[in-house]
């Protein structure tokens, strides 16, 4: 009989090669594969079988490697993406995933492709239902799954052109994502790096005292050192907005939300340290977790200097809303609420750091390398030139990876120990401690005249901003500017406040509060249309903002206002799908279908603040074209978009570009990947940079502006003129040609009434949703979306579709299933995001109303894509059933209660 042994040798076959390892007792196969066998193409997203990122084949069957003890795989055949990519199915999938852009950030891609290989081996021509069944165990947060389905089913290729602006080409960085080579935050640490683990408070609010850490560390095998607030040499505070840097790296004496860091432990790589023994004593204190509790008389103040726990507010007023409502023929009003929404990217925050000389280098997933650099420098009390941020691939961000997470812990640990250190958040830590979408509590009143013209709107919004400011001030500012939607409302008053609570910090999440306000405004628009007896689409089209009309901030765009065109684009589908629903409903009793519509807009870039991006490029003496691209590609495709724009402006093929960066040592600041600004702002910088390089080349060759450039065989040619690059002098950076250009969108400050020019451009969107509601159970099955988006100019239509489909999936999640409850839904089986079976077909209608400021007319898109989704779904539910939902998510229990008329 087998005697149980300690860390015994286990032999298995990995990707065709016999290997022997010595895992610990009950070690997860995922850990062994990644850390002992170098198979970092196996990704870990949850360690609980909820996300499927770690899917491998064991004897041909897909399993979650995080749920299998390595010893159970003894003698068996284990295959990962890297072992499957040379199979017939693997090769085909690698091509098809790139052709369809089925990989966005790429973190779920290995799990998806491994699952798909198993499917294609069993069913070479699978149906959509078979694909869904086979891939359902892998969650994706970026794509909305439809392009993955297309890739696995081998749908006709959507590619077009060679890379000019407007061509649907593959991602320029896509090959690494489908081959298992992409290196994310947890994939880059060198062997032997020390491990950082964080001690967090388990209470919403608690006083705490630390025991004798030195004695505990000395007595605990594997502990190298510890970190607390006392180890922070500079400012023990960070925040993304200078006036609101209120979040400590380590709490001092009182922790203000469940999951806040109070200390860290640095261990040797393979240590089993029981953190439950860490010497800390917590004393729970009375907490407030809702805005009403936080604003009540006598409520504890989260920050002593913020009375009533009000962080800050935003205000926009134009005309006289009260008078306009008084003269309106119809007035509707409502109280709308929403909960925390978790970003739920599949890659938890991760990275490694090391010191080099008197500098520290942080390799981690991020959306904002330069902001990270500046914030870490303040925390260290160092000049920022001593901090280098080298972003890894980012396995999804959606706003939350704009804020610091692992970076300060890594820097402090690397400096304290002098050794490389790594830190990867567990799924629970990621969910507890990083930012969320703000819960909203909105009172909204809107009026209209008999002819359908809007007459007055009042909006009062409270946003639960959690314990620390993060991007809360931005939400408070943006919401009043956007809460009108893309409509002409002459008389308007909107106020939003961010309220502190003992909850995780609310921050940036795709839309900065606008998806919440859009629910209230667009649902009330449906009620107005109904009260007036008007078609819901016609009502919106009638009030849609037009060129030359002032926004609620008094900003007048003479061009580029594309919302009317979006509604026009939806009209055929609106008429057809309403007819189909009527036919369906006549034939069905227990289930009913409905169609809903909603519009949206979003100002691209920072609100009334400087917002520059810089793009540098160079040509080497041996003829390589280098693009220093610092705009973080977090899956949305900025590497491809910026390269296409630059190539177009320069006049050389995109395929000749070598991308450099992002890396704060080698790429100039292209700003943060946020606020739908990269295509617009960094794109404009790339266009300027490409044009500047082209001008320099043409001048050097004395060639006309229309000359066609080539770069080949060590020569640059323009028309019939040529130069040998090796004959040209090198500049200080080793280039024979170099350009570096900056673009900052023109905006004007908002006055005390929110009047001004907050954005140089808005993007516009309108969605149509069809749902089927099971009346007895209150379940909603989305049947189809049609999404019209004014992007000014689609730089790459396939990337546009990818953003639209992924955004709709997130909007759908927010509308129907997602609600983060601190302490209760801190994993991916209690916190539900849409699976592959939840996203119906999505038709994307690209509207191109060019913008004068955007590169080639392009507008931002990243956030617009989810703003109309939730209200379109809620309006569709109403259309199907007559039930009005004013609290999202519309879970089956809530919808069923609404169907019965229970409050």
């Amino acid at each position, binding site marked *: 009989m087998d005697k149980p042994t300690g860390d015994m040798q286990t032999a298995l076959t990995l990707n065709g090669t016999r290997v022997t390892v010595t895992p610990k007792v009950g070690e997860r196969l995922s850990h062994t594969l990644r850390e002992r066998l170098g198979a970092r193409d196996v990704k870990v997203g949850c*360690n609980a*079988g909820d996300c499927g990122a770690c899917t491998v084949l064991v004897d041909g*069957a897909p399993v979650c490697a995080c749920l299998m003890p390595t010893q*159970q795989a003894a003698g068996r055949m284990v295959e990962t993406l890297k072992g499957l990519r040379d199979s017939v199915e693997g090769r085909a999938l690698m091509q098809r995933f790139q052709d369809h852009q089925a990989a966005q950030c790429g973190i779920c891609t290995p799990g998806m492709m491994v699952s798909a290989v198993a499917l294609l081996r069993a069913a070479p021509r699978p149906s959509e239902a078979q694909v869904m*069944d086979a891939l359902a*165990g*892998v969650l994706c947060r970026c794509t909305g799954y439809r392009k993955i389905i297309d890739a696995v089913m081998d749908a006709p290729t959507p590619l077009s052109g060679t890379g000019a602006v407007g061509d649907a080409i593959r991602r320029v960085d896509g090959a690494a994502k489908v081959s298992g080579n992409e290196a994310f935050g947890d994939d880059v640490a060198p062997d032997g790096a020390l491990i950082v683990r964080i001690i967090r408070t388990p209470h919403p609010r608690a006083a705490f005292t630390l025991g004798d850490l030195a004695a505990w560390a000395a007595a605990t095998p594997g502990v190298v050192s510890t970190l607390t607030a006392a180890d922070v040499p500079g400012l023990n505070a960070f925040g993304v907005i200078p006036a609101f840097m209120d979040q400590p790296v380590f709490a001092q004496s009182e922790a203000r939300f469940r999951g806040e860091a109070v200390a860290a432990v640095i261990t040797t790589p393979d240590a089993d340290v029981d953190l439950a023994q860490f010497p800390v004593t917590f004393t729970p204190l009375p907490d407030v977790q809702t805005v009403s509790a936080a604003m009540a008389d006598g409520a504890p103040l989260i920050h002593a200097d913020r009375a009533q726990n009000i962080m800050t507010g935003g205000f926009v007023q134009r005309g006289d809303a009260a008078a306009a409502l008084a003269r309106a023929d119809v007035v509707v009003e409502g109280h709308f609420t929403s909960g925390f929404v978790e970003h739920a990217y599949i890659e938890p925050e991760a990275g490694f750091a090391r010191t080099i000389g008197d500098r520290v280098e942080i390799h981690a997933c991020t959306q904002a390398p330069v902001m990270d650099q500046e914030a870490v420098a303040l925390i260290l009390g160092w000049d920022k030139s001593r901090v280098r941020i080298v972003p890894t691939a980012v396995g999804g961000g959606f706003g939350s990876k704009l804020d610091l997470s692992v970076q300060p812990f890594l820097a402090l640990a690397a400096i304290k120990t002098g050794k490389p250190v790594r830190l990867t958040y567990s799924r629970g830590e990621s969910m507890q401690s990083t930012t969320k979408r703000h819960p909203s509590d909105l009172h909204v009143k809107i009026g209209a005249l008999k002819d359908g013209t809007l007459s007055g709107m009042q909006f009062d919004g409270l946003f639960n901003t959690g314990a620390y400011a993060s991007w809360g001030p931005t939400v408070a500012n943006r919401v009043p500017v956007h809460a009108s939607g893309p409509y002409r409302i002459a008389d308007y008053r909107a106020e939003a406040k961010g309220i502190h609570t003992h909850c995780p910090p609310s921050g940036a999440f795709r839309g900065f509060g606008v998806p919440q306000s859009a629910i209230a405004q667009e649902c009330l628009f449906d009620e107005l249309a109904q009260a007036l007896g008007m078609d819901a689409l016609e009502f919106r089209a009638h009030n849609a903002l037009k060129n030359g009309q002032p926004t609620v901030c008094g900003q007048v765009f003479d061009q580029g206002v594309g919302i009317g065109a979006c509604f026009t684009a939806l009209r055929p589908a609106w008429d057809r799908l309403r007819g189909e629903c009527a036919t369906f409903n006549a034939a069905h009793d227990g289930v009913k279908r409905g169609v809903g519509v909603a519009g949206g807009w979003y100002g691209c870039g920072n609100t009334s603040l400087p917002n520059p991006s810089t793009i540098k490029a160079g040509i080497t003496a041996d003829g390589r074209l280098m693009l220093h691209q610092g705009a973080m590609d977090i899956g949305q495709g900025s590497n491809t978009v910026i390269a296409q724009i630059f190539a177009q402006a320069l006049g050389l093929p995109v395929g000749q570009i070598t991308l450099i960066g992002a890396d704060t040592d080698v790429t100039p600041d292209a700003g943060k990947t946020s606020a739908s600004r990269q295509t617009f702002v960094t794109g404009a910088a790339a266009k300027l940079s490409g044009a500047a390089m082209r001008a320099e080349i043409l001048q050097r060759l004395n060639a006309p502006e229309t000359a066609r450039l080539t770069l080949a065989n060590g020569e640059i040619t323009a028309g019939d003129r040529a130069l040998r690059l090796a004959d040209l002098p090198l500049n200080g950076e080793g280039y024979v040609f170099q350009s570096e250009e900056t673009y900052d969108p023109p905006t004007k400050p908002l006055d005390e009434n929110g009047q001004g020019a907050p954005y140089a451009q808005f993007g516009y969107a309108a969605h149509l949703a069809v749902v089927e509601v099971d009346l007895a159970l209150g379940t909603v099955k989305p049947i189809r979306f049609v999404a019209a988006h004014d992007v000014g100019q689609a730089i790459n239509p396939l990337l546009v579709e990818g953003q639209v489909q992924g955004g709709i999936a997130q909007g759908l999640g927010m509308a129907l299933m997602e609600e983060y409850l601190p302490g209760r839904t801190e994993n991916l089986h209690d916190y539900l995001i849409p*699976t592959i079976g939840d996203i119906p077909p999505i038709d994307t209608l690209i509207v191109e109303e060019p913008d004068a400021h955007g590169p080639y007319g392009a507008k931002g898109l990243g956030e617009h894509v989810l703003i109309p989704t939730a209200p379109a779904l809620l309006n569709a539910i109403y259309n199907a059933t007559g039930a009005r939902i004013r609290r999202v998510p519309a879970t*089956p229990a809530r919808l069923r*209660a609404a169907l019965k008329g229970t409050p």
Partner: protein
Amino acid sequence: MGYAAPDALSDVLSLLAQHPSARVVAGGTDFFPALGDGVPPETLIDVTRVAELGGITHGPEGWRIGAAVRWSEVIGHPLPPCFDALKTAARAVGSVQIQNVGTVAGNLCNASPAADGVPPLLALEAEVELTGPTGTRRMPVQEFLQGVRKTALRRGEILSAIHIPAQPDGAGSAFEKLGSRKYLVISIVMVAANIWCAGGRITGARVAVGAASPVAQRLPGLEGDLIGLPVDAPGPFTRPAHLTILSPIADVRGSAAYRAEAVAELCDRAIRGAMRHG
């Protein structure tokens, strides 16, 4: 101390006797999520290589599902229509990845109120076989499951097999699961129904409900009231009085009132489904 993967049941029992704190692991689909970032137990006994615990077999007295039988084996094994609820539930357990390693027996031992496997087994009147140092005992699944995360398993004992007695001829079976998304979802509630008929009328029925009480429950009142109904009866069949045995709670997945309401609807749907497939 360590990891053992014995190939004989007797070895599993000796190891359990020698290492009282040892944990038994099969699919790991409940073990690892519960472990999280914690320190693993010192001794793990992997039962997936024990030949006696494998296989689905059929004899005159019924079927035996070995304790190491995975959900994907249930899906792939030829079984009569009375197993349709169990097969449907098997497809609803997590994902393909989970079904490929998770076991039916593990689903019972984990004793979650929301275990998808339990209502179908109750509707089959399944029994568990528990093997310990002093021998083997059998008991109905209903008796084995004693509460939330609580079973009749004694120290030193393992669940070695699930026995399903011979089923009435022509019994149909259906499973209805309610969740907030299509896949990978913990049930809000779920219902299994097995029904058999003669002469166009229902002659026997077993209806079991999960996630509406600490342990899944049969609904004897409802089952009794179904007897004698014509097989094409439209329903509704389920009345509040049938559900008093349940004690649904409110949690993140739904309110208690909603669960109660949904159970009635799911019962009716499962009954119709079982009659259709009978």
